[in-house]
């Protein structure tokens, strides 16, 4: 059977071919876009020049889009104010940071002059990766007026991100702490230590689990357990896990193997992500979940996903906390706009609005002692919700993050020591 082509079909085929070729050419030869940043050295300009350069421009921020509260905060609170006060249009694209970095890496390899991303949200390993592969723009942080006014740049968490020196490449945006989430009705006395947690699991088999070590939250849970095994000081002073933790981590793997029979599904499988664990919790399969944000369940209670009786707790040895950051990619077409947007995101009004439980609920990155009287009153009046632990409890239990090397190390070891065992 041979197909006869009508005249019209031929034309369509021809057009399709031309279309594909045109697309390919367009994809290859995109480097003709002007790079605005090179006209002036922004890193040496004073702030008013940067603000005037940013006027009327569009800033494209690429960030994780998995949380409704966060998205609403960016689109409905930040974007209109940025437009009104600085004439900067904020355009948010939801994308996982891994994919953003991949995109930047590809652009770098293709030698593209101007990229499509102006601001990214990152921390920890991603920052280390981006820094090592030279995907970030430059030392811009000291120039931001709000950093100078409100952030304590001498503190450790403004200098190191998971042990990697920041060197002005990213500006601290917010702080979170790791907490466990439980249902008060089902668990009247939450455990205060890993030993009590083990005891609780023997009494309530199948009601606890943690996400896989490849998941951000699951890995943080395992790091907590490591902190319980090896003391924090030693961990902080030993950036390379292979050297010494190998031996001293034995109690940690023993603990995990020991609790396995009492985990959800007897530890045969683990939730692949925190979302998955949250689903199990909301359906009542497990009675506890967790999360790297002390206030994150507030919005889940409000929208009915989690029961009203959901509360949080922290246990010994403490609660790991970290800071997350905003940065500008090496090929941002609008670095001036990006700096203005980041500066605004670090302003007291934006940071205080971010703390509202209905918006995002996470802690601010500003130093409260540097705030003016009005802002401090506003800060004191914020009710973060019933599920959020009091600030002094969180502060008292705060543990710093160790080197990003541990994240990978735990991920690999966990698979060998616990899962395949």
């Amino acid at each position: 059977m041979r197909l006869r082509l009508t005249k019209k079909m031929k034309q369509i085929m021809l057009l399709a071919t031309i279309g594909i070729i045109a697309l390919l050419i367009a994809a290859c030869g995109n480097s003709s876009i002007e790079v605005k940043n090179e006209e002036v050295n922004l890193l040496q300009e004073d702030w008013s020049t940067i603000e005037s350069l940013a006027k009327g421009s569009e800033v494209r921020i690429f960030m994780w889009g998995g949380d409704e509260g966060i998205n609403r905060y960016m689109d409905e609170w930040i974007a209109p104010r940025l437009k009104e006060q600085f004439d900067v249009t904020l355009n948010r694209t939801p994308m996982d940071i891994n994919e953003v970095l991949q995109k930047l890496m590809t652009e770098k390899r293709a030698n593209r002059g101007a990229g499509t991303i102006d601001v990214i949200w990152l921390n920890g390993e991603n920052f280390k990766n981006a820094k090592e592969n030279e995907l970030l723009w430059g030392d811009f942080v000291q120039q931001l007026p709000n950093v100078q006014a409100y952030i304590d740049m001498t503190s450790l968490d403004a200098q190191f991100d998971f042990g990697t020196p920041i060197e002005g490449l990213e500006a601290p945006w917010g702080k979170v702490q790791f907490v466990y989430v439980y249902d008060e009705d089902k668990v009247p006395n939450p455990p205060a230590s890993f030993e009590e947690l083990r005891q609780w699991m023997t009494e309530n088999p199948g009601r606890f689990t943690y996400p896989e070590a490849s998941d951000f939250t699951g890995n943080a849970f395992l790091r907590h357990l490591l902190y319980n095994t090896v003391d924090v000081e030693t961990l902080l002073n030993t950036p390379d896990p292979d050297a010494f933790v190998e031996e001293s981590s034995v109690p940690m793997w023993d603990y995990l193997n020991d609790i396995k029979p009492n985990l959800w599904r007897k530890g045969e499988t683990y939730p692949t992500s925190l979302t998955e664990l949250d689903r199990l919790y909301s359906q009542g399969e497990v009675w506890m979940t967790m999360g790297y944000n002390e206030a994150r369940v507030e919005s889940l209670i409000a929208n009915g996903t989690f029961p009203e009786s959901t509360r949080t707790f922290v246990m010994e040895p403490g609660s790991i906390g970290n800071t997350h950051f905003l940065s500008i990619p090496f090929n941002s077409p609008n670095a001036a706009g990006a700096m203005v947007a980041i500066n605004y995101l670090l302003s007291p009004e934006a940071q205080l609005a971010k703390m509202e439980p209905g918006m995002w609920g996470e802690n601010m990155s500003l130093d409260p002692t540097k705030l003016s009287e009005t802002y401090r009153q506003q800060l004191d009046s914020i009710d973060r919700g019933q599920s959020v632990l009091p600030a002094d409890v969180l502060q008292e239990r705060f543990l710093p993050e160790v080197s990003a090397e541990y994240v990978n190390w735990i991920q690999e070891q966990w698979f060998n020591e616990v899962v395949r065992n």
Partner: protein
Amino acid sequence: MLTGFKNNGLMRLSATKLQLLPGILFVVVIVGYGVVSAFVESVSGGTGVGESWTLEHYQRLIANDVFWESFIFSIKVTSISTLISLFIGVIIARTLYQCFISDYAKLLTWVPMLIPHFVAAYMVILLFSPSGWFSSIGYQLGLIEYQSQFPILVMDRAGIGIILAYIWKQVPFVVLMVLPVYYQLDKRYLEVARTLGSNKRQVFFTVEWPWLYPVVIEVGIILFAFIIAAFEIPYLLGSTFPKMLSVVTYQWFYEGSWSQRPLAMAAMSLLTVMILFVSFLALFLLQKSRYRMMKGL
């Protein structure tokens, strides 16, 4: 003028080629580029492309237990889902054809094809998980005392959840491919076989099967190639261990330090070579029976 061109032999040849050109370009340029760059990354040492060539990543891969465990698990899950889908698909196509079922019913069997894979995965979770519908129904009816008694069918170590989701998605595709074969089948052969006293089984194997098997094998290869390298269903429904190769590769690729990336590329390159080899082998062997079919047995 144009009608004059149409009769020109050269123009006719290029017309056929023109017809295929968009497709060929698409495959060669876009798919080809991806495959080649993955391969290049899998054999390059150093950080930049082409700095030095090495087989180190393949050696690491071959020595990696996780790779082999997930490879074997992938083959197992893929084979089982493919075989069961083919079996059920052929039975349905045969029933649809023999019972002259209305076109609406046929359309209905194709509905799962329109539904995205991740939705299929969530359907399996909603239906078969220990807190899912079937478990709740069993609990309501008193078949099980508490929900955790329900057999573990999702995120299980045997991959049952994954297999269920794939069967549900692939059976309609098998029906779609096999049904035309039945319509092309000369009914007189069936009658001859029956008149000569063949039972149902004999009719199927002497008359229908010779027509069916080239298509069945082709569809089988398509399903196999698709399932073994697909991601979302194994990611959503798989257990922590063993994982399907695609999920392991994804994790290697997106791991924080990027040090495992060449390993992911090597695994995918090996898989691609394997699928291509099996496909060419099968198509080569099928050529003969295809030819025979064209001539009418």
